[in-house]
């Protein structure tokens, strides 16, 4: 099927391969900006990914230690290493250290390339990176010292630190919008809809979460329900979907299956996602109508999730065998499946009958790892492996990517499956009104398996760090370009 991008005006700025002779990607043919701009973009993109990689290693090392503590509660139980202080460090640093920084780095690269222009301000991008890092470092220290804003999930950082994060968001929003405003064509590529939406919405989320003067007692519970899910669904989800919309067509050298479906998914995600947060507080004293809206909208989420997933899978149609040639595509494929399964699971979990069993159990922890890891993190990895070599002209070794992929995949399978089964056992123990301790005892083998899965995941992150080093500081050209040709069957570029 020899459809060129020019035949599809609505995807005028779609991820066309404009690979130069040295394997680096450039858009100077379009706008005539200089090689220096490409270098500057590559450098700042690299810095975001390296920085995010550091946070991934740190946050998951903490996670592994936490998993170990379930079997050895007296291990490192000192004040600054106690479970309750490290747990929010693990979650906040994976969220605001690893995933946020990696996805914003990708968003910048995608915005500039898909708009056929240079980044509006390289300087602002560096400022944003500095602010994200200052917030994450200060947040980590604050939590370890015991400055925790009431164990309110993902908004534990004291408010001055959350203001720093907010400043990073503002900088990012400004820079992304200004970059897209300079685009060389009329249409705005889909990825930028999602990423610009994400930063703008998250600015609102940040303000709503920080302002303390209107949320007390039960009122604060309402905000917690809202915040906990919006910080995930209006930030990481659209950022990761933005990566999908750019990287899949890019790797396959073919346009996205349906532009309209992507637009539909965008608006339905916006309509349903913000309303479903209260499903974390089913059966709580929150008003019943709030809980019911959350359940209804959790079902509504099937529209953007299935629509979006179908769009990605149909873009890959007939090319599944090509995955053998492209690990970046395999990472993205897992990410799409993680998005489809994880989000559908979220809908199922939101029913009152299911919550009666799974709420408060480790099933939820399994779910959050299926989504934040199986979806968001795999999407980020796929994007990094597909795009970073285009920016730097350096590739990781094929063995390195393969090792990373399989360790992470098998590890996360073990992790999610053990906690899903264990969480169900836990929930049924409660339903049968066994003494509470029984559920603690019954979880033990599943905690062990979770640790095994977590160990594999952590090792894979070490391999990933090595791959990042090869993509940024190593010698050029180890593996073939991540971009496959437009051919029917696995023609590598």
């Amino acid at each position, binding site marked *: 099927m020899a459809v060129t991008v020019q035949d599809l005006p609505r995807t005028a700025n779609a991820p066309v391969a404009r690979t130069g002779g040295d394997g680096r990607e450039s858009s100077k043919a379009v706008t005539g900006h200089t090689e220096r701009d490409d270098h500057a973009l590559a450098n700042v993109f690299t810095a975001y990914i390296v920085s995010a990689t550091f946070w991934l290693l740190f946050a998951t090392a903490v996670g592994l230690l936490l998993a170990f503590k379930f079997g050895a509660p007296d291990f490192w139980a000192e004040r600054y290493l106690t479970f309750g202080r490290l747990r929010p460090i693990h979650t906040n640093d994976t969220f605001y250290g690893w995933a946020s920084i990696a996805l914003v780095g990708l968003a910048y690269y995608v915005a500039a390339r898909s708009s056929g222009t240079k980044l509006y301000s390289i300087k602002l991008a560096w400022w944003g990176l500095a602010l994200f890092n200052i917030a994450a470092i200060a947040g980590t220290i604050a939590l370890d010292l015991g400055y925790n804003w009431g*164990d309110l999930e993902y908004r534990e950082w004291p408010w001055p630190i959350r203001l720093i994060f907010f400043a990073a968001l503002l900088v990012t929003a400004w820079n992304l919008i200004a970059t897209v405003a300079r685009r060389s064509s009329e249409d705005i590529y889909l990825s930028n809809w999602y990423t610009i939406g994400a930063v703008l919405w998250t600015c609102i989320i940040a303000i709503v979460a920080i302002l303390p003067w209107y949320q007390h007692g039960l009122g604060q519970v309402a905000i917690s329900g809202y915040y906990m899910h919006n910080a995930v669904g209006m930030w990481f989800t659209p950022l990761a979907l933005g990566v999908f919309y750019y990287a899949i067509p890019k790797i396959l050298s073919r346009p996205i299956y349906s532009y309209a479906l992507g637009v539909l998914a965008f608006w339905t995600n916006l309509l349903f996602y913000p309303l479903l947060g209260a499903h974390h507080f089913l059966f709580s004293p929150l008003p019943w109508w709030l809980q019911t809206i959350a359940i209804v909208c959790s079902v509504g989420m099937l529209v953007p999730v299935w629509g979006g997933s179908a769009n990605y899978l149909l873009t890959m149609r007939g090319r599944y065998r090509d995955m053998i040639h492209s690990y970046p595509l395999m990472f993205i494929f897992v990410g799409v499946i993680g998005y489809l399964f994880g989000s559908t699971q979220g809908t199922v979990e939101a029913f009152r009958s299911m919550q009666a069993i799974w709420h408060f159990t480790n099933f939820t922890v399994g779910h959050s790892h299926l989504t934040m890891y199986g979806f968001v993190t795999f999407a980020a990895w796929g994007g990094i492996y597909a795009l970073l070599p285009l920016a730097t002209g350096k590739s990781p070794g094929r063995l390195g990517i393969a090792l990373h992929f399989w360790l992470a995949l098998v590890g996360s399978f073990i992790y999610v499956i053990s906690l899903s089964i264990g969480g169900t056992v836990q929930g049924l123990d409660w339903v049968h009104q066994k003494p509470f301790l029984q559920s603690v005892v019954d979880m033990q083998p599943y905690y062990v398996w979770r640790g095994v899965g977590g160990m594999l995941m952590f090792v894979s992150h070490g391999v990933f760090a090595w791959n990042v080093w090869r993509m940024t500081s190593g010698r050029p050209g180890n593996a073939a370009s991540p971009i496959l040709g437009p051919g029917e069957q696995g023609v590598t570029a």
Partner: protein
Amino acid sequence: MKKLLAIAGGALSVYLVIVLFIAVIPSIELSQTPPGPGVQPLTPLEAEGRAVFAADGCGYCHTQQVRPLPEDKAFGRPSAPGDFAYQTPELLGSERTGPDLTNVGSTKPSDVWQYIHLYDPRAVEPESIMPNFKFLFRVVDQVPVGDTAVPVPAAFAPGAGKVIPTQKAKALVAYLLSLKQQPIPGYAGHAGAALAAPVPAPGSAAPATPAGGAGYRYDAAKGAALFMANCSACHQATGEGIPGAFPPLKGNAAVDNPDPTLHIHTVLQGAHGVTIGGVEYTSVMPPFAGQLSDEDIANIVNYERSSWGNHAKPVTSTQVAALRAKGE
């Protein structure tokens, strides 16, 4: 430019409207929820304890919300909106790796138990996976005036010296003991549990095991389960208690006694500052009259009277009902 404005502006305004209606306005309204009957603000010490609770992340494993589901009955009556009037930050939590704490001040009212449990959870709950909070305690040679040493069981105590709680531990325990559900007038759920049908206990599917003599049977499996759920935290599964902290039931003069009056009365009404076997116990035992039916209490009492070498005459639920009717 128009297009960018339409997408970014449109997405932002739609979101703003949704957020106002789903989060901000409900939050402002719910923040005005008046306190329920008997719900009191925290004292300064309790508030300090709540800060320790949050700082050390207790809320990641312990919820503070009781759902109107049968499985949550063990933790108290369903939480009502008025319960949270003074709860900022809210600590409802999202995971129950450990039990819910909404009503822990009523079910485990002994500060001694709380201190031992914080110092080393396995000293009172051998299968607990809660981390120890030894960093909230100090080990001293001489107990300072005004302080009381925590009677940590020998196997868990430091080799030398006495364990005393720091200010943070005292505040945390004050906070935990303040977590008491207030009865809601007219609510007939748990307050009337004595009249309600007994909760089916694990193992109840198995036929009742005949135990006790004199042509009288009681449900031994149920008695054991109820004992483990309600009594063993202090008196221990071995029935030996914790020396200096919680009295033994094994060979206890009130338990292993042909006259069950004191035994039943203690389970119904609780106890405080009693002397048993020449040892004075300062810890508080909670009353169970409000939580357990006559039949359940008879099962527990009979389990205790026939275990660990005790051989006392079994009691009936009628005897429990009679003593309940007498009141304190």
